[in-house]
């Protein structure tokens, strides 16, 4: 536990001492702010149109479904772009600079330092999405969205990010080049995002497997405000499997080189 903590603190410091953390946080904040604004103005326009409806009582407008849900999906897309920047250095950099040799010859197990690294990436990601709550807080001040679906959306974002982080960690453990790590992670994230687009043109069995793999459909429930245990199981098993594969990949370094 102490070892995990040592690694975790070092990694976190290294994010925040270097400009990495600030660049990532700023970019995310700018983009999510921009998306918030566009979604908000679309929503306002829509509600004005609805009020001017000449055919009697307008259908009810729902802030959570019509505004928060697309906002969460947008933030998830930004996460797809930002998480490779968080994970690319985690292991690849250690390989490049030779500090991997220090970790591997110190009396700590690979699992301990992998977990430490994963957690530090997760905390950076969590602080990133926490910042995006600022505009939403304003929405709470001036509007009346429901609280719990917003929390559910954030839980969904945490799970989604956690899964991407574990996948990015594997990729980072396979190369010593950070650019390659980032590019390949980004490719995999995007693939998982759009993989269900081909589901309809496949056989039923194949299609449902592909659909299950699609990370968006699991996330969308959270964005709608539904916390479904099957989705939680999906994300948790994704994360655990990713960390396990990273462990395997690190363990095999001893045998491969």
């Amino acid at each position: 536990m102490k070892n995990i903590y040592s690694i975790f603190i070092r990694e976190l410091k290294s994010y925040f001492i270097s400009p990495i953390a600030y660049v990532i946080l700023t970019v995310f904040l700018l983009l999510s702010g921009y998306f918030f604004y566009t979604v908000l103005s679309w929503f306002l326009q829509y509600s004005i149109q609805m009020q001017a409806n000449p055919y009697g009582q307008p259908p009810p407008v729902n802030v959570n479904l019509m505004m928060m849900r697309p906002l969460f999906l947008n933030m998830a897309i930004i996460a797809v772009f930002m998480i490779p920047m968080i994970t690319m250095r985690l292991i690849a950099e250690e390989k490049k600079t030779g500090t991997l040799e220090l970790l591997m010859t110190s009396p700590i197990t690979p699992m301990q330092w992998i977990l430490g690294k994963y957690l530090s990436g997760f905390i950076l990601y969590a602080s990133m999405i926490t910042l995006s709550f600022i505009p939403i807080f304003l929405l709470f001040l001036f509007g009346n969205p429901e609280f719990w679906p917003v929390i559910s959306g954030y839980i969904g974002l945490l799970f989604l990010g956690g899964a991407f982080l574990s996948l990015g960690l594997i990729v980072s453990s396979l190369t010593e080049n950070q650019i390659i790590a980032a590019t390949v992670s980004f490719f995999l994230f995007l693939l998982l995002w759009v993989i269900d687009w081909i589901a309809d043109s496949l056989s039923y069995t194949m299609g449902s497997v592909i659909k299950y793999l699609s990370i968006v459909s699991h996330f969308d429930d959270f964005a709608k405000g539904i916390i479904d245990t099957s989705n939680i199981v999906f994300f948790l098993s994704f994360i655990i499997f990713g960390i396990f594969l990273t462990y395997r990949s690190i363990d095999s370094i001893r045998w491969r080189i």
Partner: protein
Amino acid sequence: MISVENLTKYYGIKKAVDNITFSVKKGEILGFLGPNAAGKTTTMRIITCYLSASSGTVRVAGYDIFENPIEVKKRIGYMPENPPLYTDMTVSSYLKFVGGIKGLSGKKLNERVNEVMKVAAVEDVKNRVTGKLSKGYRQRVGLAQAIIHNPEILILDEPTAGLDPKQIIETRELIKSLAGQHTIVVSTHILPEVSMTCDRVLIINEGKIVAEDTIEDLTKKIRGSETILMEINGPKNEIKEKLEKIEGVAEVKVQDTKDGGLHKYHIESKPSFNIRKELAKTVVNSDWGLEEMRTISLSLEDIFLKLTTKEEEVQN
């Protein structure tokens, strides 16, 4: 303290370490000598559990490196050839981090960090970022990192590589001062270093151990024949001819000097012949001017070259 038995390591089909066996006693400084790519680093990496072996066993302080890697790692301080520094950390925070993952904590950790900074003489840069340090300081921080948990065994991979002469001397002094409390394995391809710091030397070439002994014994063993240098004033060809006729002389090489009549003669004896008396007699009787006469002792460098070039000579 360390026992290595029949250790073999393949990289793909290339044999990097070929069936080597050796042991290091407690408190000893073992020099690991060999040309580049001889298998020194590979062997060290296997002992420190960074790499696995293809076959063979290694035991460190009684623990097998495959069965009890954590116990082994606790007892070893390892300094790779390139010090494993996190370039964004300051020296003191880096050492604190390394101490932490090596099992120190709290007050003990702070004490040790201060101690090793003193020992490795890096106190004056303790608040500088390691990435901005000069090569000499980096190397010393690397050393400080290796000794922070006060390990029984120190494994240093080319600790003086890339340092200036003054730093080399300081580093050697530092290694010597660590002897006694630690068992040390130092690798190097610089020869004088071994004779200056080590008790015992192990010469490795192309993955095989070609010699293992104390430095004095090694010199004696190799020196079956001796080479004598003479500076003689006189006719070159005649002198050469006469000297070659003396019993026990294997070869005479002539070297011109700036002074026209004066030549240097390198005379190599056949094994176990003492030719000095005859040489002197011949020169004096022929009435040549003998300016200088001395034996050339084999330096470690010659031994090293002799041992590591043997194989090629056989092939030729």
